[in-house]
């Protein structure tokens, strides 16, 4: 499968050219935003930084203070679905190039991805050390008053491996897996469990 290098911020053309199933290596500036930041931005708060084209990363990292700088210890993705109520609005207002997280998102986000030319990038949940290796430095931190995991961390990354699982053409790998598994589940529910073994 194709492995593409992309850099954040993404150009609108790049974002529109990515398709579900594409494997990418991300470099550049990415910005973390999880529950508190989403709620804040959705309720009229101003983003302290320009988000256009950037990758918005659903992540609550472990960061420690070392002398005058910050060091990222672990920074894997958090479940994106919790941001479903806010994400579409955020995409329309701030025009990020990609949303990155784990587990995928729902129909509202998918629609906004299509309208605005944005994609969803999936990272492996829990592979925190693996992901941390691609994080070069902390460039800035904003909204630290939300607590360390919930702040907006601007991170410089290089060659971070991700998978496109939702694209601007209306495709969602998550929706596909879910509908296939639903068919199988329906069959399984029909075959009863017998408490006696064959002996």
């Amino acid at each position, binding site marked *: *499968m194709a492995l593409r290098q992309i850099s954040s911020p993404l150009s609108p053309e790049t974002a529109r050219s990515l398709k579900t199933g594409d494997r990418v290596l991300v470099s550049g500036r990415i910005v973390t935003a999880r529950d508190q930041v989403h709620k804040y931005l959705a309720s009229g708060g101003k983003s302290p930084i320009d988000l256009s084209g950037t990758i918005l990363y659903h*992540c*609550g*990292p*472990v*960061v*420690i203070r070392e002398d005058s700088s910050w*060091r990222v*210890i*672990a*920074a*894997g993705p*958090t*479940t994106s*679905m*919790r941001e479903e109520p806010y994400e579409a609005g955020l995409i329309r207002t701030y025009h990020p190039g990609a949303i990155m997280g*784990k*587990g*995928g998102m729902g129909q509202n986000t998918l629609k906004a991805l299509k309208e605005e030319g944005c994609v969803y990038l*999936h990272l*492996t*949940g*829990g*592979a*925190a*050390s*693996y*992901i*941390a*290796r691609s994080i070069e430095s902390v460039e800035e931190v904003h909204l630290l008053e*939300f*607590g*360390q*995991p*919930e702040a907006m961390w601007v991170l410089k990354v290089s060659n971070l*491996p991700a*998978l496109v*699982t939702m694209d601007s053409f209306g495709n969602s*790998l*998550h929706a*596909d*897996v*879910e509908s*296939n*598994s*639903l068919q*199988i*589940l329906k069959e*399984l*529910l029909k075959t*009863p*469990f017998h*408490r006696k*073994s064959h002996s």
Partner: protein
Amino acid sequence: MEKSVLLSSLQNIIEKASTVLPEDIRRALEKSFTEEREASVAKDTLGMIIESAVCSKESTRPICQDTGSILAIIKSRPDESIILIEEAIHEAVKILTRNGILRQNCVDPVTGQNTGDNTGKHVPQIHFVPIDGPTTVSVMLKGGGSENVSTQYSLPDSSLEAGRDLDGVRKCILDAVFKAQGKGCSPGILGVCVGGDRASGYLLAKEMLFRRLDDENPCKILGKLEETVMEQANSLGIGPMGLGGRTTLLGVKIGNAGRHPASFFVTVSYSCWAVRRISAELDSEGRISEWL
């Protein structure tokens, strides 16, 4: 028991829990890796997980940045050492949070403030079980993403056509796996409690996650149910991280508790692959005498 000795033991136990993936889980992941199709997303994902766990262990970093909610179970004779152990857990948690081994995971729901040190009202959660034997401490760090997809059913459940029997239990568990999709960071491990009440069900289901993947259920019928559910769940095609594949679960552990005649709860505690559990025995000084 000696205060300073206990503190270093507890620090050791919790640090190891956060940074070293249990052997049985690692082996199960490796086995699944060989079973996934070549060049598939599932195989790639499992490869990444395994590599990440190795890297965490070597560099003493958390396996996952979500170092979870902390549950500790102390089993000991009911004497004053329990209080000392409890204090040592709190102290160890604060130190490890400062060192980046635990993330700041305790938020006051009323003020919205993060307490910053992983301690707070009922946090960490500590349970005491009086026994007449050597003192053991078991610690589990369970991720929020997987806790969020844990769930409880009350049988009968008409939407699943699940009755008050083990087949009904099976249907509930499969439904929970389906609903979780990849959101609990599959491949998952399920702790299940059949029976109990709403409160004990959740605790007992979570405690099932302390069982090793390769153990045998002392109850034959539940053992068979574990096997059946495991096989059926892995045929759903949800796969690692819900991106498709054969490995949806690494294990299913089912326990039971007596139920009220009017109630029949099935509680599913879903754990991500990064189940962080550890148990150790302490000697009379508070030193770790054995990893269990």
